[in-house]
């Protein structure tokens, strides 16, 4: 079976739910444009209709068809993206991560400062901090894309754009041009790509 590249996004119910979904949708759609086999989906068990509850969104990218498409979780993520930095304190966000994985955090704090809250940081290959809030200015809230619905409000107008840019820079899993073709706020995407601070561990 071919390796499947797994992206897990941690975000919060309602207030940042769409932003989290936008990150995985943008990465999957960009990879699709590059001819990869992709999958982007919400965690089904999280019940994201409660304000602030930690919830997960997943993307899977592969050179071959994805065998376990019908599964609930990314068991061994290559990348974990944190939409709200405070989440690193409340959950073991690196659970199951492959050795040498990358953690991307939306924060204006430094990688060193953020790492203080990650007890199992020896799993990490790198941490990348990007001030997505500062770059995009706002989180969009919309419910049309929940529960398998089609998002009617557009992709990547808020903080997801710089976060996706940061993932592209820190991992190279997709390139910036493919992302620019799918997200609404290209300026924020580009700034996320350029301004992310990557620290190798």
């Amino acid at each position: 079976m071919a390796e499947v590249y797994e992206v897990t996004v941690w975000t919060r119910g309602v207030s940042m739910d769409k932003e989290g979904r936008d990150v995985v949708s943008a990465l999957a759609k960009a990879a699709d444009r590059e001819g990869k086999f992709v999958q982007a989906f919400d965690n089904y068990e999280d019940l994201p209709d409660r304000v602030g509850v930690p919830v997960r969104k997943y993307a899977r990218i592969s050179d071959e068809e994805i065998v376990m498409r019908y599964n609930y979780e990314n068991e061994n993520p290559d990348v974990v993206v944190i939409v709200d930095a405070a989440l690193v304190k409340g959950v073991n966000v690196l659970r199951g991560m492959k050795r040498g994985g990358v953690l991307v955090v939306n924060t204006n704090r430094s990688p060193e400062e953020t790492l203080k809250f990650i007890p199992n940081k020896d799993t990490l290959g790198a941490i990348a901090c990007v001030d997505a809030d500062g770059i995009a200015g706002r989180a969009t809230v919309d419910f049309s894309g929940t529960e398998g619905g089609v998002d009617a409000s557009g992709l990547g107008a808020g903080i997801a754009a710089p976060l996706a840019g940061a993932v592209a820079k820190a991992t190279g899993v997709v390139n910036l041009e493919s992302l620019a073709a799918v997200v609404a706020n290209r300026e924020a995407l580009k700034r996320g790509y350029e301004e992310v601070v990557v620290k190798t561990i």
Partner: protein
Amino acid sequence: MAKEVLISGCAAAAQAVKYSRVDVICSYPIRPYTAIMMELAKMVANGELDAEFIHGEGEHAQLSVCYGASAAGARVFTGSSGVGVTYAFETYSPISGGRYPVQMAIADRALDPPGDFGSEHTDAMSCRDQGWLMGWAETPQEVFDNHLINYRVGEDRRIMLPQFVCHDGYFVSHIPGKVILPDQSQVDEFLPLYKPLHPLDPKHPVSHGPQIRPDQGAIMDLQRAAAFLEVPKVIREAIDDFNRIFGRDYRPFLDEYRTEDAEIVFFLQGAHARTARFAVNHLREKGLKIGLVKLRFVRPFPTEEIQECLSRFKAVGVIETSTSYGGAMKGGNLIHEVRAALYDAPERPLTTSFMAGLGGDVITIEDFSWMAEKLAKAVKAGKVEKYVYWVGFELEE
């Protein structure tokens, strides 16, 4: 122009309903089918779809609205999941008895003990004897296609029966897959506008659902039973047309995968067939002569096709995804149908039942390998060791 999109099974179902030009939609929310109604509500609100969208106050009311709307001559769509499906149970028989071709999507959800939203077919399978057509889809594309095919068959004047169009909750309903949205003219060619037998007409008033006497009850049953005898023929015609118009390659009842020289096969319906295909490839690489037979309609059950197909193999592993507590085979429902169909077959394969994919459980490649091992062992021994295995929970000697 036809175009390819990446959408969930729910969104695919909603698209099919839109292409079908339905007149009346009645909703009531329950996970995981809800997004079908979310999508349709959006389409009606933004003028993309010209239909009455009615929100029922519960599933029983929801199906009652559909009953009335279909009696008045409308093409009707509704849907539900899990306990929502069972809450409306009373309405299913009168809808099929009155011969109203209502279409209902079911995105499966386990029935409550105490509360689980994973996919299990027991919700729909509990309703399989209510005079509705019933079948499952494996992918969002098949969801889209099945909705069109079912309207066409159910509304055929020789049939006039309602249809449960089912797909697995979450796996198919929530995970996006590639779907080809056809040109509206293709759908119009395949599925003409609905011509009701008794449209609401002040000049020719009719009374629907009157009280009948016990001596008329059997005749009503016979009418439905006789209609069901015609369904396979109409399904075959519809599939032929569908394949021609949309360029697909569906078999009407049984979809076979790598069965040419197979000795053992997995037999199942719904989402897990997708993983099973990969499992078959994996096991073939190891030298096992294994294949897959996927059931597309459980009502009508394709008895002759099953006899013809399954008697070619030495052993059949029926993967259940639904429960029949205390049933003849102590496991699920499907094996009852399979064994009954095979009883008069000249060559009968060994059959056993695998309880897997219950409560929304994932069936992994390892699970399929384990099942294949049991089947291979049965072939070697010339008999099955057990009628039912609970995959993942068996004590190994």
